[in-house]
């Protein structure tokens, strides 16, 4: 005889241990080693979810759960709206070999009823869904990573040879705020490599020219142009405003200054340098490795400095 949904649920709940909303709250507060999984439909999740939960809709559960929880011994707590779908999902995970599966009784609505806090992500526009679709498809980036990019602030020191490609790709990637500092104006001789500038912009401040290009590329990106020189007087204040500094400078004065300021502000600085056919790249961050001065304690003697 065919089973009714009632039978199915009763079976599932017999097989999958239930935990209460309060239990889950405790686990989160105790930072227990577990994965909280939201198995609802995408639109339900979009209206709010428990902070820290990963989203694996029930429809894709069997296919994607291993991406999120590769270790089948790990404690997995599932929740849906009321605690029924999560029980059925739990049964499925047990069939797949997950040994510690729980279902949160009462579900997300029960969580909300108890007045517990939850989070809701800013919704993507249709255009953003399309623009960042290739990032969304990467498990390592996804919506979460894209949100981090949009909320991030990157300071580009120089809108020249190194700054041009960085700025364009970071803008295309959806880095939300790009500060660009360069006191120079665009010259025809720059155009052979400084690809963010155009022939029409010769004579314009580079920071402004870069802003124009980025505005045309991605309206999500806010560009803050600084048509000024980076000095020991203004650099620290500037660096503190940003999450990451990109050193695209072409001189040692700026390289040492960026290194010292980023170190003092505790911000990572992404170092790059180029000469003729050779380039060097590294990332410096306090307590994570050496700094620029560890590698180059003193600037090269004046005669050896390429102009």
């Amino acid at each position: 005889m065919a089973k009714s949904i009632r039978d199915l649920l009763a079976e599932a709940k017999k097989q999958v241990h239930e935990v209460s909303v309060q239990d889950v709250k405790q686990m989160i507060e105790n930072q227990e080693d577990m994965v909280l999984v939201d198995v609802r439909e995408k639109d339900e999740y979009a209206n709010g979810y428990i902070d820290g939960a990963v989203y694996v809709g029930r429809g894709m559960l069997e296919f994607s759960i291993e991406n999120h929880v590769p270790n089948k011994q790990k404690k997995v707590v599932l929740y849906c709206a009321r605690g029924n779908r999560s029980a059925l999902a739990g049964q499925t995970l047990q069939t797949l070999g997950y040994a510690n599966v729980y279902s949160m009784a009462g579900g997300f609505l029960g969580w909300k009823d108890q007045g517990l806090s939850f989070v809701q992500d800013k919704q993507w526009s249709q255009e953003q869904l399309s623009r960042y679709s290739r990032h969304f498809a990467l498990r390592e980036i996804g919506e979460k990573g894209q949100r981090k990019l949009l909320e991030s602030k990157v300071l580009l020191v120089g809108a020249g040879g190194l700054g041009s490609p960085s700025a364009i790709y970071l803008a295309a990637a959806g880095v939300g705020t790009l500060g660009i500092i360069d006191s120079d104006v665009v010259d025809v001789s720059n155009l052979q490599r400084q690809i963010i500038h155009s022939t029409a912009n010769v004579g314009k401040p580079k920071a402004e020219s870069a802003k124009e290009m980025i505005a045309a590329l991605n309206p999500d990106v806010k560009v803050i142009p600084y048509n000024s020189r980076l000095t020991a007087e203004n650099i620290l204040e500037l660096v503190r405003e940003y999450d990451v500094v990109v050193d695209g400078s072409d001189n040692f004065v700026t390289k040492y200054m960026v290194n010292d300021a980023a170190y003092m502000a505790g911000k990572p600085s992404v170092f790059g340098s180029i000469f003729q056919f050779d380039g060097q790249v590294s990332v410096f961050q306090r307590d994570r490795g050496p700094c620029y001065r560890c590698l180059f304690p003193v600037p090269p003697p004046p005669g050896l400095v390429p102009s």
Partner: protein
Amino acid sequence: MLGVLPGIVGLIQATEVIKLIVGIGQPLFGRLIAYDALAMEFRELKVKRDENCALCGNEPKITELVNYEEFCGVACPT
């Protein structure tokens, strides 16, 4: 300077920025990538913190920003 050279290096920098922001992969901490366009070679040099470093060493001498033009000498391009 070869025009595409800063393109290669600038985009490695951009890649590192994205990794740092999203928090994925292995950032280039303690590693220096040296790129030779003519040989088309990428070499990786392991680099260590210098405990005598004036900035991040055990007894740092630089605790605030200095005069960088003076430090680099007159011939240093600005």
